[in-house]
């Protein structure tokens, strides 16, 4: 399986995303100005400050040439993972419901949080241990998940909330403690925490690996079919 990691001007977690992807498969960079996904089996839109976060987080990046291809890939059922700024970009692109607002406390938060895996039957969480919490870092200023109440109800009813901050761990005031959501088809997933920073015991946790391993399982099965 080969994962492509998009690199925008201002991306800064693409290096770690490539490293995490390389643990479960092959990994390569997808340049923001290209209109070619190079035949990858999955796409990661990484964290950072794409286009300086000018105007609004993710607002400019979503119009990058590569994003047209990512949108087509997603609509064709390809696996797309958005992490932090990548999550914001996918929301702006309309590939995921909702939006990310400035943290309730206005502060940049950078800390390890505990996450409950709400759904373990999805393409992004099928390799996560059921009933166990993940310890993964967050680092953001604009991570407060928001959607209108009716949309949140709908999202929860269809099992679209894959990750929640464990009680007492909501770092930003996210609605219903939502840390990560997927689209209706289940092939696009965005989350504020950084699983790519939790793949090596050196940095304290390897809990992020199960998300990438899940992608390998699903993309690998498609490849084998």
């Amino acid at each position: 399986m080969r994962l492509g990691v998009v690199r925008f001007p201002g991306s800064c977690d693409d290096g770690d995303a490539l490293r995490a992807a390389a643990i479960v498969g092959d990994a390569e960079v997808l340049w923001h100005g290209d209109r070619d996904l190079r035949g990858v089996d999955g796409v990661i839109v990484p964290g950072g400050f794409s286009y300086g976060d000018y105007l609004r987080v993710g607002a400019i990046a979503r119009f990058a040439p590569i994003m047209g291809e990512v949108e087509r890939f997603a609509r064709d059922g390809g696996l797309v993972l958005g992490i932090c700024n990548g999550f914001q970009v996918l929301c702006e692109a309309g590939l995921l419901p909702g939006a990310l607002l400035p943290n309730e406390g206005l502060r940049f938060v950078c800390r390890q949080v505990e996450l409950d895996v709400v759904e373990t039957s999805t393409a992004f969480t099928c390799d996560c241990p059921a009933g166990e919490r993940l310890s993964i870092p967050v680092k953001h200023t604009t991570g407060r998940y928001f959607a209108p109440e009716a949309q949140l109800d709908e999202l929860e009813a269809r099992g679209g909330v894959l990750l929640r901050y464990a009680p007492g761990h909501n770092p930003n005031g996210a609605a219903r403690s939502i840390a990560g959501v997927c689209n209706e088809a289940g092939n696009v997933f965005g989350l504020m925490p950084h699983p790519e920073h939790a793949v090596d015991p050196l940095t304290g946790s390897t809990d992020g690996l199960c998300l990438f391993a899940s992608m390998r399982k699903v993309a690998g099965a498609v490849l084998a079919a």
Partner: protein
Amino acid sequence: MSASAGPSGGAGPSGGAGPSGGAGPSGVRARVLVRPKEGILDPQGQAVERALPALGFTGVSGVRVGRLIELEIADPAVLPEICERLLANPLIEDYEIEPANPVAPTQPA
């Protein structure tokens, strides 16, 4: 949800009165106000509101922080679409297009 839009394409001079009548060769100057939707928590506004009493200003409430975008545009009819697609995120923000003024001819030095 209803974005409080409305391209008030009229010639209401807001602020500096531009030369009314003939539109400038490069279109009109317009301002777009973007603000957090009502009901959405605005921590920036709250922080500003909390800072005011420390400066001795009391009786200020309902502070909301948004942004102002100024632009010159040849065809103001497309402004609402520009707002919907880029300048504002209609899910979380309302926008308002201020009456456009013709671009003033270049001032002689």
